[in-house]
């Protein structure tokens, strides 16, 4: 049973077509990766799905609702939550205050304690976010997303810019979430992708060029040529 349906979505910037007539569905319980080279249109597609950008054409359905014309805060309230490629937090508020913000809508103090404990954030709770390392900031953003009790979580490059230890930590957390949450992961790190997902959608120049199980995509000739750089 599907939870997300993207139908013929197109996004143009002037004459440049960033997302070209893209369609796919995600079923409940699936963990999907969207991969592709830089400029393939992955982040633009997520921006259109979550209404950070207005689509020029097509429709998006989430959990039975047509969300194409809804503002971002209404989409979030339906349970479609996202993180950002460049961490987007409230830098002058403390970690505790950042984690409290989603809680005002959906969570409770005990949820904040539980999530902070799960992500290892307890020692940073009273520090202003601007002063904590990037890896911790990524975990805070993940924590904020989880506190919104999402039905689907879209993670835009969750391990980008992180060291090996932080990467491992986030992969471990995400592995634990797989069973209880629909995940879409945009990621360049193929080890992370193959470790986590059930299905991979490959984009290039704004279009989907492959869609299948990890082992199928790994063997796809076009993907090898375009993305993995194998002749």
């Amino acid at each position: 049973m599907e939870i997300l349906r993207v139908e013929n979505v197109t996004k143009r910037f002037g004459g440049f077509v960033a997302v070209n007539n893209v369609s796919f569905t995600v079923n409940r319980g699936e963990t999907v990766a969207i991969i592709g080279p830089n400029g393939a249109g992955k982040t633009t597609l997520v921006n259109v799905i979550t209404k950070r950008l207005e689509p020029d054409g097509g429709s998006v359905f989430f959990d039975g609702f047509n969300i194409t014309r809804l503002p971002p805060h209404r989409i979030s309230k339906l349970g479609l939550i996202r993180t950002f490629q460049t961490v987007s937090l409230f830098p002058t508020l403390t970690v505790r205050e950042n984690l409290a913000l989603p809680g005002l809508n959906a969570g409770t103090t005990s949820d904040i304690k539980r999530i902070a404990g799960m992500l290892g954030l307890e020692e940073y709770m009273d520090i202003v976010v601007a002063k904590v390392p990037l890896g911790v900031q990524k975990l805070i953003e993940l924590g904020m997303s989880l506190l919104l009790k999402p039905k689907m979580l879209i993670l835009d490059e969750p391990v980008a810019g992180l060291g090996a230890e932080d990467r491992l930590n986030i992969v471990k957390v995400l592995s634990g979430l797989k069973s209880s949450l629909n995940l879409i992961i945009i990621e360049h790190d193929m080890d992370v992708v193959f470790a986590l997902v059930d299905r991979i959608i490959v984009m290039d120049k704004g279009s989907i060029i492959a869609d299948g199980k990890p082992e199928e995509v790994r063997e796809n000739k076009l993907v090898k040529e375009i993305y993995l750089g194998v002749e």
Partner: protein
Amino acid sequence: MFLPPRLRVLIDGNIIALLLFIGFLAVIPLSGHRFYMYIAVLIMIFGMFAMGYNILFGYAGLLSFGHGLFFGVGAYSVALFTLNVYRDPLVGVLFSIPIALLTSILVGVLTLKHGKVYFAILTLALSMIFWSALVKLRWITGGTDGLTGIPKRGVLVDLSAPTTFYYFILVFFAAIMLGLYALNKSRYGLLLRALGANEDRLPFLGYSTFTLRMIALTVSGVVSALAGSLYAVFYSVVTPDVAYWTFGAEPLVMSLIGGSSYFLGPLVGALIFVSLTTAVARFAEYWMLLLGAALLAMVLFFRGGLLGFLESLVGGLKLGVYRRWRF
């Protein structure tokens, strides 16, 4: 200090400083000095104006050049009401609250969907339209002469004795300050600070930035109008000057002087501003020069205002409940 955790969250340096200041204000009439009472009343009125302004500026990150509009709406509401409808200052002041609320919502609908720069320009434009209307609609507003004879003695209250009037202002001041402190500590206070810190992120946490901006503008507008209505009763006269944009920019200057990212910054700014304007009144021709130099120094060297400067001197003083943004 052994306090229950919930109480510990509510009590910080700001509330202690605020209560001490209110206590200090409460004993000023005992000195018998009318001049000190006069200065204190002005500090309370402009303190309210600046604190109200800073909800929008320091918390929500919206620069308004049109707060003279709200101050003027409050002042003219109480004047028109007490002179034409019901001759009582208390009822007049209370009447200004719903008028300010409606004005704030109307201004919000017209301005808040636009970017920050457009918001600043639109508030300036609306304020100047209001000022022009006050000047031109003579038969209602008295034109440039304004409205005189706003009563201190009414049907319900008699504020004609200076001490009675002083405590009348003090009650409003204390109520507004404690209300703003409660807001600062509430979930809406946190949301408003978040709005100023990164408003683009909030919709993806399920919050409408328009609604939050509207809350900030409404609180700011009503508090500013309340200050305006008390100002009108204080002087018993109101002229269009209070709606002029330069007057509306004064709480901005006060916020910058005290420190806009500190809860009590605007109040500290109002204290300094009112004291200085009164102290250097005899050198009036140099006042603007002095103010300009002080502002230049603040923006170039002390962007956290006086409280920011003090905090940098005494590291870890924790004067600020929030230290949100610097310019």
